[in-house]
């Protein structure tokens, strides 16, 4: 952490941002895009650029974009990004404009992450002040978590690869970040818009409604409310103004109203663009239905493809239900335990989704790793961080090698590639579990500081 801080001190934030943008632009100008757009790590059936182009071509030739089982994205993306899939500028590669859009989306996401991070840091400092813990925890050594998160997001190789590899995940990530930013800055229509678009694009962000409601109801992350009560009990004075606000339903209802409005709007737009081609039912069947039934078994960095390629047909439905319910099962316990930290809750949800979703890509990992940067101060005591870092590096080097051995050379075996996917899943599990544990320990530490007891049981 010290090193990171020094680095950030020596270089200014904006230098890093420009460097990452220039790096992206250089990569874009490589011939054939370095073949990143057909890597299984980058382009899943949902985010693939080639499938988007195919959907656009089908639509241009007056067929339903969902006619074959090629395109599974949103019809809105088709209308907005489809025209960029064909050659617009003479003498330039086809994907140039589209890549520029991805770069812009990445930069916008990074800026939103930075703004949200600053917001969170201010809220954290405020709550420490009201707990009179400013002295005990050296606030002066606090990192600018917003800047760090934005830089992690921008300079993460996963983000760069997803951006240069022409997948649609930069756009999906931007929608998720827009939703969190809107909720943090109490811009309710923006939050609702982000949530509706993110859900529309990739279904899984739907569960972010819980952190968004907490954010709108009680404000950004703070230590548990009962710590404040305890603090004031100790002081024997109950200063109502210093307490965090109670849960208020007003903004939530406001949010629900806007979410309803935006979803109606989005559905109407989709309905208009698919009017001749089977309407909305066709869209739901080949987007959400495709996500939930895991029909495409092409290899990706997830674990479901090999499982469903191997499992007996008889049990397929059972396991489909089990794996999807696994995401839902964890929602409630996490929401109860982390309700006072809605942004962290959102991070955990995003991480769990990107681990358990049917067609994960590195773009999803890029999102939660970026969000992780918000909590550098709170998670300073996290265990296994070096192990996790090395694990991520190792997997991202080994996985392409195993894929190459299996698919291109034919000397390897599917099991080797699957093994790297399993390791990757385990790493994510360790990250989520340790992250949650570190955050709970951080809360315990604060409480112990308040009650004046020595920090006893850690983990």
């Amino acid at each position, binding site marked *: 952490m010290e090193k990171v801080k020094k680095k950030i001190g020596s270089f200014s934030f904006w230098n890093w941002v420009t460097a990452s943008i220039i790096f992206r632009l250089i990569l874009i100008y490589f011939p054939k895009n370095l073949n990143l757009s057909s890597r299984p790590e980058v382009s899943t059936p949902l985010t693939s650029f080639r499938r988007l182009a195919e959907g656009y071509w089908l639509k241009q030739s007056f067929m339903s974009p969902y006619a074959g089982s090629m395109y599974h994205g949103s019809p809105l993306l088709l209308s907005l990004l489809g025209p960029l899939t064909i050659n617009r500028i003479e003498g330039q590669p086809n994907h140039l404009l589209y890549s520029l859009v991805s770069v812009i989306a990445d930069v916008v996401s990074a800026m939103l992450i930075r703004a949200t991070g600053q917001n969170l840091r201010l809220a954290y400092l405020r709550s420490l002040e009201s707990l009179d813990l400013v002295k005990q925890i050296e606030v002066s050594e606090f990192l600018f978590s917003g800047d760090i998160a934005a830089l992690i997001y921008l300079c993460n190789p996963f983000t760069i690869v997803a951006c240069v590899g022409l997948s649609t995940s930069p756009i999906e990530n931007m929608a998720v970040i827009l939703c969190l930013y809107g909720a943090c800055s109490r811009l309710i229509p923006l939050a609702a818009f982000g949530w509706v678009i993110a859900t529309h694009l990739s279904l899984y962000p739907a569960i972010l409604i819980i952190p968004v409601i907490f954010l709108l109801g009680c404000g950004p992350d703070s230590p548990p409310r009962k710590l404040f009560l305890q603090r004031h009990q100790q002081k024997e004075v109950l200063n109502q103004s210093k307490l965090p606000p109670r849960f208020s339903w007003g903004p939530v209802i406001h949010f629900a109203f806007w979410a309803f409005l935006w979803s109606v709007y989005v559905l109407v737009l989709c309905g208009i663009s698919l009017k001749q081609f089977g309407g909305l039912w066709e869209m739901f069947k080949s987007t959400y239905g495709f996500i939930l039934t895991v029909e495409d078994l092409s290899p990706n960095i997830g674990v479901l493809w090999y499982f469903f390629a191997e499992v007996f047909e008889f049990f397929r439905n059972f396991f489909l239900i089990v794996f999807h319910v696994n995401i839902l099962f964890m929602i409630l316990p*996490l929401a109860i335990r982390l309700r006072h930290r809605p942004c962290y809750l959102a991070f955990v949800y995003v991480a769990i989704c990107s681990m358990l979703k049917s067609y994960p890509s590195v773009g999803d990992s890029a999102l939660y790793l970026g969000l992780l940067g918000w909590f550098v101060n709170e998670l300073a005591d996290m265990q296994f961080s070096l192990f996790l870092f090395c694990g991520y590096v190792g997997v991202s080097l080994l996985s392409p090698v195993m894929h190459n051995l299996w698919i291109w050379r034919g000397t390897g075996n599917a099991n080797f590639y699957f093994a790297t996917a*399993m390791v990757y899943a385990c790493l994510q599990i360790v990250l989520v579990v340790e992250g949650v544990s570190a955050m709970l320990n951080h809360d315990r530490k604060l409480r112990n500081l308040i009650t004046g007891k020595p920090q006893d049981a850690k983990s």
Partner: protein
Amino acid sequence: MVLLQRPHILLLLIDTHQFLQCWIAFGSANEEGQQQEEFSEELLVKPLPDHKLLAHFHFQSSAPPSTSNGCHHHLFPKAISQLVQKFRVKEMELSFTQGRWNYESWGGFDPISSSNAKPPGVELWAVFDVPQHHIDASWKNLTHTLSGLFCASINFLESTATYSTPEWSFPPASGNVRYGTFPCEAVCTENLTPWLRLLPCRDKAGIALLLDRPSLYRGFYHSQRLHLTSTESSSEGIDSGIILEQTLTVVLQPNSERAIEVHASEKHVQPSWSLSSIFGKQVSGRCVLAKSSSVYLLLDWGLVAELKFPNKENGKSAANGLTSENFWSNPSFELSVNPDRIFLEESSSHSKSLSILYMFQVEKYSESEPFDIGLMWKVPVAWLCQQTPLHASRFFMGSGNERGAIAISLKSTQFTEGFMSANSKDGSCELRVDVFQVVPWYVKVYFHSLRVFVDQQPRAVSDFIEKIHVSPSKDKMSPGVMEVVLKLPCRVNTAALTIEFDKGFLRIDEYPPDANQGFDIPSAIISFPNFHASMVFLEDDSLNRSPLLSKFQEKCPVMSYTEVLLVPLTTPDFSMPYNVSTIKCTVFALYFGSLLNVLQRRVAEEERFLKAKAAKKTGRLPLLLSKLSAKLRGRRREPLHSPPSSSSFINSKLVLKVILVAGLAVGWQYFFS
């Protein structure tokens, strides 16, 4: 009484009337010769340029409309007529093929090659006369029936992922057509026997006697075809019953040991052959049930042009002198049997030369004097068969098991160049090429990546593609179909279509037993609708037309099939299902368990706090009890001074829980019984 008897009389009258009608109908059916069921057998033999021999058996049976004589048949196979009636098949073609027709040396522009050169394996197409929504059900039943009838795995064509609905590029252009191929079917004698069973004489008499299994399957190409046309249920007024056409086309290598021995130096001498040397059998008379039974020998016009016929310059005068002997005894070859008749091609689009057809009647021969035609070459000849305007081939591009591209390349055949320029009336000469390509769903084609290369230069797709129809593949549901109409300039040397694809991944039980062998992509059909292959022969009596010759006269568009491609797909580890399931479930359990553990873990102090909080909320007795228990736990070293009370506390909670669970169980039972 009279009144009572009246109805009987009426009934009697009606009965006699009906009987009369039936009788009249029967009589008329007997009177008219055409209404009879007919069978004819023919064999056409044609020497091929590359020292091989083409034998084309043609059996045709026809049944009059069922309205005239019910469902009784004398000659016509009952199984076929039942099939037609049951599934209301309008037209159907089924072919079993082994080997590949060599378009370059065996030609592609004559009626035989354009209608009898078939893709390897099984090809089936059918046109149904049923409402649109019943077609798929009819197709399914038809495939199963044919599968039983011909001992073949045609029933694999039943699933919607294997057959397609061509819109317009497939020749019998109609919305009711279904087309399916099964390239990996191994064709063998077990398919031939049921096919022969449809003939009235089987292979016991007549020309079919020549069908000796070992010599047939020794050949280079073998295609047995069954074509069915029925006008039975058509909405049009013309009703000509069912016509069943069974053809067997084989390309054989004549046993040319003698030729090799004698003319080792002269390699160009065609091998001499006779029917008995090729098939090992002779024809001992005709099938008595056949209306006509004849053997033809066709000399291609290219060959005729090479041979030194005395009056080859003026073809018309040759037609006049048909009987002149110089057609079969000439310096270059010698026939062992004198032909009964000689036909000369009436007119041809390529006015270089005319084909000659020698006809031999089998009726004249008998068991004691079997028919055996032989041809002895005296001088070496070399000629070329007429080829399709463009020679089509298809191949894969790319490596690896992730993606690739299919390329269909069309190469101009120099042979037809002059012919094409003759066809062009004005300066803008265009060559229309229809491409019909079916790809199975696991080859996921990106139709937007279609590229056209003309004369090895990448060109804009819209410049050369006049019409395109695409139906993209649905996973495990339907194959991808691409129909393209290309308009190429006549002067084109090469043209190529490329299209990219991703390889799909299947579940383990979708792989065939030999998964690493690869998967077949059916042949593409390349047809040239502006060119028609037909041969019209001069015939004096149009009444007694031979079915084979009238078939030759029909204008059928020139078409050719490309190679079948074998695409290797990646395989998962077939021995892993249990391991994968257990490992995956272990990881999930790890995730679920450890996360839940972290979430519900309480540090000791927190626990005490919670207990105290819980105690505050509950009543006095439980409060006391809980305080007691807290004390007990807090000072564990002290002896337990009141064990009964603590046990009663535990008991009450336990009892409460048991009651709750029992209540739930009772409620469950009550609601769901």
